[in-house]
């Protein structure tokens, strides 16, 4: 299989091209821009297959996708940070309308003031909208996840956000296996979900409804999220058979018998993996899916490991509560047999996780002492 040295952004764009997308809508924002620029080059060379248009804002980008998806088109857009925040109304809307759009979000901090660093707050702020959220740790995973995202979204009819860290993943060159388009086509055929706008059957879409009807629709999205587990397993099986790689909702490394489990999402997991061999008694649980949240699986794995401590590494913070993933992990462990304390390393602002920082937090002394069992430590305070 051809291996190329490309960035995470180029991997995303190449996957979109291989996926046989019908429409790409572009609006630039750092650190996402290289994705839509690479797609523009495909289009200009006549190699995109589908259509490519530039929008006047991110809001418009997602609205264009929504319109095209209503007609049954496979659509893609990419953004980051303020762009994603500006889309917020449309993000809800596309989930409600059950458009299987795939959006790549490259994590970046939110202002004020302006900051380009890879805080995850942008995508995590959108976790209640009804989008599937899949987090990637490296460029290969970005490529593979985009392909899987189209299959998954179109199967359960929910939009899917493929998320990866700005710069660490988006701008770093890595070796990526890039299967040719015909092989990809064996995994992902052309889109075949039903068009909502059908000239043969005129309808009034998305008009005003009451509370009960709305409740049923929310419930149906909630149920569709539950179907993600089964569908994702099937997709991974098919993907592994063709490409030899798969991405379970929770990835475990060295968990068995670990005293301490580190939990994170995104590229922090790569740093952790690189130092795990040198860290006795420490394992990693990486959250691939954040929505739906793999609570059951996480609980089972933590219980099975017998770990005494869970440390969640959050490159984000919900002020007034703490790291967002830590809160989700705590909720998932509620009621678990002998649930271990959940501690939190917060890297909000996009602070880099260094091997040195990991060693400091794992020596245990930082989290013991005052502050109760669920203490948090801020990376910036680790001088």
């Amino acid at each position, binding site marked *: 299989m051809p291996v190329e040295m490309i960035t995470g952004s180029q991997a995303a764009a190449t996957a979109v091209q291989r996926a046989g997308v019908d429409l790409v809508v*572009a609006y*630039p924002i750092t650190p996402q821009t290289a994705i839509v620029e690479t797609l523009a080059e495909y289009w200009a060379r006549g190699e995109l297959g589908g259509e490519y248009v530039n929008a006047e804002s991110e809001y418009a980008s997602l609205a264009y996708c929504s319109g095209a998806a209503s007609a049954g088109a496979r659509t893609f857009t990419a953004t980051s940070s303020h762009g994603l925040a500006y889309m917020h109304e449309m993000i809800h809307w596309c989930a409600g309308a059950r458009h299987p759009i795939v959006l790549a979000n490259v994590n970046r901090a939110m202002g004020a003031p302006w900051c380009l660093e890879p805080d995850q707050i942008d995508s995590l702020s959108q976790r209640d909208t009804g989008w599937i959220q899949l987090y990637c740790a490296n460029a290969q995973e970005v490529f593979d996840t985009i392909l899987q995202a189209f299959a998954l979204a179109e199967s359960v009819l929910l939009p899917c956000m493929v998320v990866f860290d700005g710069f660490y993943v988006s701008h770093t060159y890595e070796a990526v296996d890039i299967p040719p388009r015909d092989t990809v086509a064996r995994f992902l055929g052309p889109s075949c979900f039903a068009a909502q706008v059908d000239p043969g059957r005129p309808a009034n879409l998305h008009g005003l409804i009451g509370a009960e009807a709305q409740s049923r629709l929310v419930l149906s999205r909630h149920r569709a999220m539950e179907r993600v587990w089964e569908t994702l397993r099937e997709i991974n099986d098919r993907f592994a058979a063709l490409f030899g790689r798969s991405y379970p909702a929770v990835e475990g490394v060295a968990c068995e018998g670990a005293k301490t489990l580190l939990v994170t999402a995104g590229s922090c997991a790569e740093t952790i993996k690189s130092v795990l061999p040198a860290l006795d008694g420490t394992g990693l649980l990486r959250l691939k899916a954040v929505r739906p949240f793999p609570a059951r699986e996480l609980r089972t794995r933590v219980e099975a490991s017998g770990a005494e401590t869970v440390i969640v590494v959050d490159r984000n913070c919900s002020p007034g509560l703490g790291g967002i993933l830590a809160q989700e992990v705590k909720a998932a462990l509620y009621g678990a047999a002998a649930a271990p304390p959940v501690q939190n390393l917060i890297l909000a602002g996009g602070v880099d996780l260094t091997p040195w920082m990991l060693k400091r937090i794992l020596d245990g002394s930082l989290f013991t002492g005052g502050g109760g069992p669920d203490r948090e430590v801020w990376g910036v305070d680790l001088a």
Partner: protein
Amino acid sequence: MVRVEHLNQTFLRTKKLPHIWCPGCGNGIVTAALVRAVERAGFAQRDVVIVSGIGCSSRAAGYLNFNTLHATHGRALAFATGLKLSQPQLKIFVIMGDGDCSAIGGNHFIHAARRNIDLNAVIINNYIYGMTGGQHSPLTPAGRKSTTAPAGTLERPFELLELARGAGATFGARGSAAQPRQLEQLIVQGARHKGFAVIEALSPCPTYYGRKNRQGGPVEMLRALKDSSVSVEGASGLDPAELSEKLVTGVIYVKDAPEYTEQYYRSTGKEPG
């Protein structure tokens, strides 16, 4: 003999210099024209506020030693509207890029014009999104290349000053980095005008627009700007075919109409503040 005149250093945050702009970028020339215009207009430093959006051009706010406010992308005029309404005595200059003003911020632009609120919008038009690396904007001429239109954009550009006029702006002027003295004059006139003043300042972005469209280096781009410029008076003698090749500079329109902040306080009977 060219008279060398140093910029009023008290109006600059000299500690922030050197600026981040590329060599040959027009942003510095336009910013200098603005500094001289503020001085020439005789405004007190404490009364001047610079509001900017986001883009290379909007970085100017960081170098100017007034109250300065970096807003979100495209929303500088909305921030400035709130500020002007609460402190009508302020002299507010809103610096925007062509993308910031006319794409994501297009809505605020037409509504500021419609209200005829007394703000001075200085749009640094380099025909490109500079900060994000060279994508086309709604002011990029059709056919020109960008990173998101490698084969040239199909889209028709706005005529910015006509858009503003149609929406209700009462002062519209065009200048360029190639003629900074004239630009300075235009900014002064706009600032003295009561109502929404739009100053479009054409400016070279050699790094992206220039390279993508083979416009040569900064010198060639400035020369091309200068050579294609014709004053409003000069333009009156040209036929439409000749005119379509030209960049008409000067005050394109000016008229009187009620100003929004004044109207507002008159209607409420309250004193500002």
